[in-house]
């Protein structure tokens, strides 16, 4: 694809108190492509994603969406742009059912009353559109679902809104082989539908299986963002562990900003 990025971040800085977690990070996501975001534990992947989703305010930096500079001050702003995030800690309410979770915070109503029927129909359609057939009833509580099913619900929740960018934070971390394959298939399908998908994963096999681009974070700095076809497994591993690999990566591996 020769399109420009739909989502682009430049020079993002984020600190928690005295600890600076993100340093001058640049990141882009392209429509129709899966961009893998990789990095060691604590590299700042989840933090970056939460900044994109408006969960954490950024200290400084620029946020572009479809080429326009935008301000994202909260989850609702991100959602309004069409950016949806499936969090590492799933953020589903166990005591609510599938439909209720999928529409949480954005319930359909007619007048004062919740329009349960329309919500159920839309949820069913979305799940069918993703070729999900593993859930028995849309009205079963999320607490009764398996890990893979929960992940599916969380992903379906993210695409329900005709979203343009879907970000998945380690969607396969807790899954078995078969369920991982299912979720990865789902991820690929989302991109093929034209969405920009960002996938965070520690598993290089998963990354190379579905990703078109790879962005590697190293100690809160963006070491490199490259096409998946142009790098090897070991290069990516080096980027993750040392911040550089040959020509690629940070000029000074130990992180003094370039």
């Amino acid at each position, binding site marked *: 694809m020769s399109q420009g990025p739909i989502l682009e971040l430049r020079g993002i800085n984020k600190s928690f108190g005295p600890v600076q977690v993100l340093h001058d990070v640049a990141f882009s996501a392209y429509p129709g492509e899966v961009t893998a975001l990789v990095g060691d534990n604590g590299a700042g992947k989840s933090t970056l994603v939460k900044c994109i989703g408006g*969960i954490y305010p950024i200290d400084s930096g620029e946020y572009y969406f479809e080429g326009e500079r935008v301000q994202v001050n909260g989850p609702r702003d991100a959602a309004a742009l069409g950016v949806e995030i499936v969090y590492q800690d799933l953020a589903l309410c166990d*005591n609510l059912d599938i439909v209720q979770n999928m529409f*949480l915070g954005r319930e359909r109503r007619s007048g*004062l009353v919740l329009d349960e029927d329309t919500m159920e129909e839309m949820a069913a359609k979305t799940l069918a559109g993703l070729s999900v057939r593993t859930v028995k009833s849309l009205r079963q509580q999320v607490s*009764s679902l*398996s890990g893979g099913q929960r992940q599916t619900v969380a992903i379906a929740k993210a695409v329900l809104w005709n979203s343009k960018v879907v970000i998945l934070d380690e969607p396969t971390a807790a899954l078995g082989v078969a369920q991982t394959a299912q979720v990865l298939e789902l991820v690929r399908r989302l991109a093929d539908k034209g969405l920009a998908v960002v996938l965070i994963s520690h598993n290089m096999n998963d990354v190379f299986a579905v990703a078109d681009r790879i962005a590697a974070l190293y100690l809160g700095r963006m070491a490199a963002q490259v096409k998946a076809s142009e790098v090897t497994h070991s290069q990516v591993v080096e980027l993750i562990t040392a911040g550089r690999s040959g020509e690629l990566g940070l000029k000074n591996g130990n992180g003094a900003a370039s």
Partner: protein
Amino acid sequence: MTTETLPKQDKADSAIGVHVKGYFERVKGGELGALPAVFGLVILCVVFSILRPAFLSAVNFANLFTQGAAVTVIAMGLIFVLLLGEIDLSAGFASGVCAAVLAVLLTLQGWPWYLAVLAAMVTGAVIGFVLGSLVAKLGIPSFVVTLAAFLAFQGVVLLLVKDGTNISIRDETILAIANKNIPPVIGWVGLIVGVVVYAALQLLQARRRTARGLVATPMAVIAARVVTLAVVAGAAVYVLNLERSRNAAIVSLKGVPIVVPLIVILLVVWTFVLRRTAYGRHIYAVGGNAEAARRAGINVDRIRISAFVICSFMASIGGIIAASRANSVDPNTGGSNVLLFAVGAAVIGGTSLFGGKGRALDAVLGGAVVAVIENGMGLMGYSAGVKYVVTGLVLLLAAGVDALSRKRAAATGRR
């Protein structure tokens, strides 16, 4: 069209099986719902009526309602706070403060009843707003905030009613709430209207869902629900419409106590809010996973504060009912066992102390259990001391069932 009707008919038949099976699966999985409360209620009623036949008399039956009304109403408000996994220990004395405000304005200041009632309710709402803000904005645990308020409100009641005296209530309208009945005919009309509206709503919903190809509640289940409601409520109205006066020639005493329709209206309103509005959905969401709710763009602080407002507001209504029933307000109004009974009622009814689970109906079911225990043991001549101990044990039992069913739910993957 015709080709489609046949398989649908087929589906409807097996739908009953699925519905019933689903229910049993949920119960086995630890979602006991109303089961323990209904079960307890039946057993208690049987035991008491065998030991003390007077328990079954129409007079006593009417007593049960007026006796349990205040606690039930307070419990209904508490459920909102409990749904968030918070607690309001001050709800009892908040009702006392509101009752004292009512009494002072009504009796000492000579305000008309509606203004005094309004003032009491506003007092309740303001109390809730302050408590909720302290919990949500400052982040003080609700246990501590409301424990402090518990103590402070006890003092406020004392100050309002001037050191230990009591203020009697003479306003006819206020006294009527817990002491007068509605005419038998109106009782019947209300019952019929209620059952018909309930049936119509259920049928309309089922038809709408079937028309859209969604799974609807099977007809047989709807019929069972409507019949149960009609029989239970019908029996209650029938008994309450019997003559209760010892000397009917002089003064007739029959009809449904006014508190009953009052509770029914509150029950319907809060059930609607919890089950049919986005606000209600958000209450459950915050109670189930506050972080998920926040990420879904829900204003969690506002939900927290509003739950405390509803709780204290309902406490004010409970206080008004208590004042009406006692014909007066004294420093103990809303004190002693009121809070424990209200929390007990909610938990016995099936509301979880861990948050995220509960219904407005729980307050009514649990309130009934509490009222039956208090009333039955009173009839058997037990002292207040024994009653407290037993009620305390029942609360513990209910909380134990709650904790165990939660464990069970975790074990069966329902959490």
